[in-house]
């Protein structure tokens, strides 16, 4: 009997121990604390505003407008050469990129599709965010318009990076894979569209965006005018000059944006939100200093105070010679000679000192707000488009406006295609235009081997590049094609 009690007591203790925690409700349900589950992330209009900001963050990064988009336009052409005879800079400068070097060239593709996915996700979810007052509805429309405009910018860049210039073959070469909704891994494996089809998508997105966007200046974000200026640029690239002219003149005449004065030109690059900028991207005080708005690599050698450091991009002698006869041109003054006579660590190189850092936020040269579009571009697009449509008078007027802003002593000239392109070359160094300008105007790029710079590149060195050449477009990364063979490689590249 005693034994029986003994057992009952044991069994009771055992039962308590065995059941113990098993009764805890929700023991296996955990939620992340460092991120937000998607269904809770875009509920209110305020959430939408935060998500709208998220459309721009990859663009300002060094992998896109922070450094590499400028590289693609300037270093790949004849504006800038790399100081080092090896490394990424030399590969870009000498067009030695291959599909196997996925580390830099593959990332354009990845990063733009990351932004496109963000735009598509945003467009699919914005409807769920309630807006009732007219102000709220306008805000919601503006956010939506931004998503379309950012997507347009992405497709435009993909087309010009991975496809031959539109004017070479009327957009017949391969462009981007067009996706306008979010997709899973299976649905994402579409073949590439042509450049022409990609441009159609860009124009369609811009048309939608324009109908939704606010016309008010919106620092760091697309507004109506930014979309319209991008449209002008797209038309220019397509050789649709009349439409380019209409778009550019509309921005010049009706937008609040104005060219900064010649006196203020140098300081402009350190200002945030100057009315010269139609679209500039915002760098942050927090975040990886090496990655955010990394224009320092194009600036002079302050890094490490050491001529052997990462700062490596130097305006070519050809570019410097553009200012030989115009010492007063503010743009020609944006170089700094690093005189070896003045110190042991001086390099004897001429450095570009355009990007001096976002001074309004108190940053050094290493954090610049990347300029995607400036009002000056509208003038030069208008000049080129007017000339192409036979209106030399207007063309000269727009061109001279830019010339005189930079150099008050400049004489008026009659616009020619060559003068307009030279003006663009002077104006946009470090902003990633030159390569595409040469390509779309059917020119040829020559690497200037007479630059006073002992630069060698090995036996595969190519001296000139023209539209239609294999190296005029970037390769699709071979790593990407291993898992996605539907993605056509560009002609002339091996995997």
């Amino acid at each position, binding site marked *: 009997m005693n034994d029986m009690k003994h*057992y009952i007591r*044991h069994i009771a*203790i*055992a039962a308590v*121990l*065995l059941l*113990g*925690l*098993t009764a805890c409700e929700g*023991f*296996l*349900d*955990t*939620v*992340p*604390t*460092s*991120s*937000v*589950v*998607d269904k809770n992330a875009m509920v209110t209009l305020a959430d939408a505003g*935060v*998500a709208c*900001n*998220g459309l721009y*963050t990859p663009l300002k990064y060094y992998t896109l407008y922070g450094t590499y988009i400028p590289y693609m336009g300037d270093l790949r052409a004849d504006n800038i050469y790399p100081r*080092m005879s*090896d490394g990424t800079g030399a590969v870009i400068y000498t067009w030695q990129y291959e599909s*196997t070097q996925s580390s830099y060239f593959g990332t354009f593709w*990845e990063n733009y599709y*990351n932004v496109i*996915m*963000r735009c598509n*996700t945003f467009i699919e979810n914005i409807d769920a965010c309630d807006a009732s007052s007219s102000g709220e509805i306008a805000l919601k429309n503006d956010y939506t318009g931004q998503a379309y405009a950012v997507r347009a910018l992405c497709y435009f860049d993909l087309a010009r990076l991975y496809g031959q210039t539109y004017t070479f073959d009327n957009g017949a070469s391969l462009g981007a*894979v067009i*996706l306008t909704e*979010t997709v899973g*891994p299976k649905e*994402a*494996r579409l073949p590439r569209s042509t450049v022409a089809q990609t441009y159609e998508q860009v124009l369609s997105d811009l048309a939608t965006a324009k109908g939704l966007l606010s016309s008010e200046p919106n*620092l760091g974000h697309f507004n109506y005018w930014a979309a319209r200026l991008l449209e002008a640029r797209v038309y220019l690239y397509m050789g649709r000059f009349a439409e380019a002219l209409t778009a550019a003149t509309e921005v010049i005449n009706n937008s609040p944006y104005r060219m900064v004065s010649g006196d203020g030109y140098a300081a402009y690059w350190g200002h945030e939100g100057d009315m010269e900028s139609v679209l500039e991207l*915002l760098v*942050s005080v*927090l*975040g990886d*200093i090496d990655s955010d708005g990394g224009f320092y690599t194009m600036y002079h050698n302050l890094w*490490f105070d050491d001529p*052997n*450091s990462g700062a490596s991009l130097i305006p070519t002698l050809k570019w410097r010679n553009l200012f030989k006869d115009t010492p007063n041109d503010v743009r020609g003054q944006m170089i700094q000679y690093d005189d070896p006579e003045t110190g042991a*660590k001086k390099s004897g190189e001429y450095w570009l000192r355009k990007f001096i850092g976002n001074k309004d936020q108190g940053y050094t040269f290493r954090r610049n707000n990347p300029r995607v579009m400036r009002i000056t571009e509208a003038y030069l697009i208008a000049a080129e488009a007017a000339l192409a449509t036979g209106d030399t008078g207007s063309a000269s007027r727009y061109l001279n406006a830019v010339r005189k802003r930079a150099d008050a002593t400049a004489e008026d000239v009659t616009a020619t295609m060559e003068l307009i392109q030279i003006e663009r070359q002077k104006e946009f160094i470090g902003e990633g235009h030159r390569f595409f300008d040469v390509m779309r105007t059917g020119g040829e790029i020559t690497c200037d081997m007479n630059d006073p710079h002992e630069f*060698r590149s*090995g*036996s595969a060195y190519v001296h000139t590049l023209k539209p239609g050449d294999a190296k005029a477009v970037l390769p699709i990364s*071979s790593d990407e094609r*291993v*898992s*996605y063979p539907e*993605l056509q490689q560009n002609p002339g590249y*091996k*995997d």
Partner: protein
Amino acid sequence: MKRLFAAVVLVLTCSTLLAQNKVTGRVTSSEDGSPIPFASVVVKGTMNGVATDDNGAYTLTNVAPGAVLEFSSVGFLTQEVLYDGKPVVHVILRPDTESLEEAMVVAYGTVKKGSYSGSAAVVKQESIKDAPVVSFEQVLAGKAPGVQVASYSGQPGADTDISIRGFGSFNAGNQPLYVIDGVPATSGDRAWGNLSIGSMNFLNPGDIESITILKDAAAASLYGSRASNGVILITTKKGRAGKITTNFKASAGFSYFAYDNYPLCTDEETERMHRMAWTNYANDNPSSWQSYGSVDAYVNAKVAANYPARDESKYIYKDWEDVLFRTGIAQNYELSLTGGGERGKVYASVGWTDQQGVVVIDYLKRFSTTINAEAKVTNWLTVGATSQYSWQYQNGQQDGWASKDNPFFIWKVVLNDRWPYAYKDTGDLYLDTWSPSFSTVNPVPTYDKQINDAWQNRVLLKGWAELKFTDYLKLKTTISEDWLYIHDRFGWLYGHPNFYAYSDTGGYMADHHFNIRRLVSSSTLNFDKTWGDHHVAAMAGWEAEEENYEESVVNKIDFSYMGATQSVLATNFDDGYTYTSRNSLLSALGSLSYDFGARYYLTATFRRDGSSKLAPETRWGNFWSVSGSWRFSNEPFLKGSGWLTDGKIRASYGTSGTLPSSNYGYMSVYNYTNYGNTGASYPANLANSDLSWEKNKNWNVGVDLRLFDMANVTVEYFNKLTTDLLLDATVPSTTGFSSTLMNIGSMVNRGWEIAVNFDILRNNNGWNLSVGANWSHVHNEVLALSEEGESIVDTPYVWQEGYSFYQFRTRKYLGVCPEDNYMGNSRLKAGNPMYAEGSYYEQGEIADQTVVLKDGTVIQEGSPVPENTWNFYPTNRNNSSNMILEGMTAIPKGFGGFNVNVGWKGLTLDMAWSYKYGHYIWDEGVEQMESDGYYDFHRNIAKDQLNAWTPENTNTDVPRRIRDNGQGGYYYSSRFLKRGDFLRLKNLTLSYNLPRNFSNKLSMSNARIYVAAANLLTFSGLNIDPEIKSNGYYYYTMPAMRTVTFGLDLTF
């Protein structure tokens, strides 16, 4: 043996009603008949016990006839004797060699080795205790078949790479589960900054009693969804009943590189190599030297600029090896005591380890303590606790890549004989940048300004209680907490040349704190009963586990004071975050074993796991195993045969799994960042709500034999099939993401393990000699990756069906081109490197260019290709493609070890060798050091470059050296791949037990002195230390150290 077994069976019946007697006797050694002092004599199942005196004599009271007396002593097999009521019991103990009767720790309990039907290897304390290592993991190399171990970094405290029976996982990790005294523990490298921090370092190897490595499903599947990669069970030392004995152990010694790593050209040879590269360049490019007048003048000028001569009148030069490295001093002290009485037992220890690395700033200090105690509260309740606490500080440097702060890298690559150390006139250090392509300055003044350090605190507490209902039914409940706290830092102080990289003015410091707390509660009900020849054991229980992870980082910049080391003294906040996460696991488990007549054994296990890491719909899974064995040596027809001491065949089949490492991988989430000075959010992942654990199906057959009572042979074959592999699968970038976590594909690991052990001499004129060897072969193959069958490239590896997990894919290097236009290829010049063209052709495809098959057959353009093949047509680099390099994988064809143990009287020599062969190493150092002239400026040059191609030296694999080599060796190709075969004397111990009568005079029961060495000898064809991570990837990781220590081991 049979009698013993019967005795064990008998004790299981209660005998408390019988009379209590006094027993006396003597315990002696079977080796030489000498008395064994301090042997423990215990009435089994009670706390009633004593220790023998100096003469091996004992007296024990209150022993009931029918009780079992348990005699044990370190180094001897435990013996059980059925007490039949006679007052005197003498016992002779046999030295502890392989035994089938000894208990081994297995999943959720212990079994007798001879009755075990799973596959498990046991490593005992004796083979761990003297090795001069921080973590026991470093000693496991070559000790257990099927277990690959690589101590891949020579920095003290670095983690060790262990894989059991191949690689069963893509992204979920291949680390085994570690279980300490029955509790799953946090393991692996838990570093955040640059240091590698092995979290198992906390455990002083001296506190470990034994390690069991569970390999097959029968052994491991009770650990369910985490058991796929095998399980390492660690049992710490427990108190022994009897007189309190104290052990003190001290050792000290020296360390230096264990291997001649990256032999370099001498100064004279380096200059010759520079000269060769510039001369070839000048001859190839006549325009280059025109302004100099002659090739010689040009080459002289270039060499003078790029490898400037020493100027002894101006500078002081030093051997950089002496500047950067030192002979490290290793010290270890341990004090432990063990003892107990009728109602309680305790083991307690403290340990202190201080190990210097070879780099002048590298060191590790560790304090560790253990207290394990148990008490018998009543005759039906026993309670106990185990506890470990340790504190560890590591100071190190950047490791494993080409960084200015990696001394091994800068020593080998940039610091050369002509780099001035200091100015002669003032004695000030020469601090200018030396190499124009690599902004390294004299590292001496900045060494202490590089901060890579870590504190690791660990507390592991376990409490348990065991309720005995009857002799055959017990309930055990356990609760434990494993708390790991790491504070590690990375930074550059004010004055470090790199500080500009993170701050424009004055330094950078990142402080990282994190806590991992793991709470485990489990209860098991155990049944164990014998009826005649039938024996049944069963277990049922549940377990709940919760892991909490908290982390915070603060990055600050701008020190304004030269000596500041704490980030609190830095002016500006740069970045920071806090992070918490949690996961939990709920499980039910059970097992059932039946055996008959000590001949037939059957076991089944079951576990049901639910994990928070998976969606509610998919989170529960069942894991099970069945196994059986036939101990044919106990069959009547074999019983008593002289040659077969023991023999067993066993087989098992079962399932296990691996959970994803991410806690929230199945959810779609937004992350938050900032844009300008406002917030920004974005979709962060491509979610997969179907996420599940990896599924492992595992079978194993084995034969265990003991022949002539002297040779143990075990042969096993295993097959592990893993399906639903967790993979951060590359997805088309057009999804907006580069990868998503998926269950995709399958992989198999199958292979053989053979272990043999001979006791050649056993107490033969005082001599003992045993030798052992083991060999393992694992065939690893990716069976499927996805329905579409694509491959995944992670340069230089590829995952593709039909190839191994670590299959290399790059350009195929074909050596040096023997003549211009070799094989009609106009792109090739004599002396240049050649690569295989590399395109892939399906059988029957029409060749669109010249195709060369592997055997050299040439298929002309326009002809059909006769087999599936890569094109081996030699071409230059630009025209070659990456291809899968058949047969080149980091997975060895075989690996294992040899052990030799020689004893003569008190003298013992132990050797443990480990080997690995048939695998390839990716040596990323080739890029910098064997660049054929490309990276030469101001740099060191590897010795093999001396064999560069010249018109006179054509029989070579090293291409022509030329400055600005557009074809050079620095481009990835199979030239980076080297055969990794090696044989290493991993541990050697020579110890001497002072004569007993001598030590007894000093009131010691035992006194021992020893010399222990790690990595004493290495044989390998590699030019770097061959002990490299199991992925075969090497990139300037600090190579292994050779350590020799002298020790003293005293027992009172």
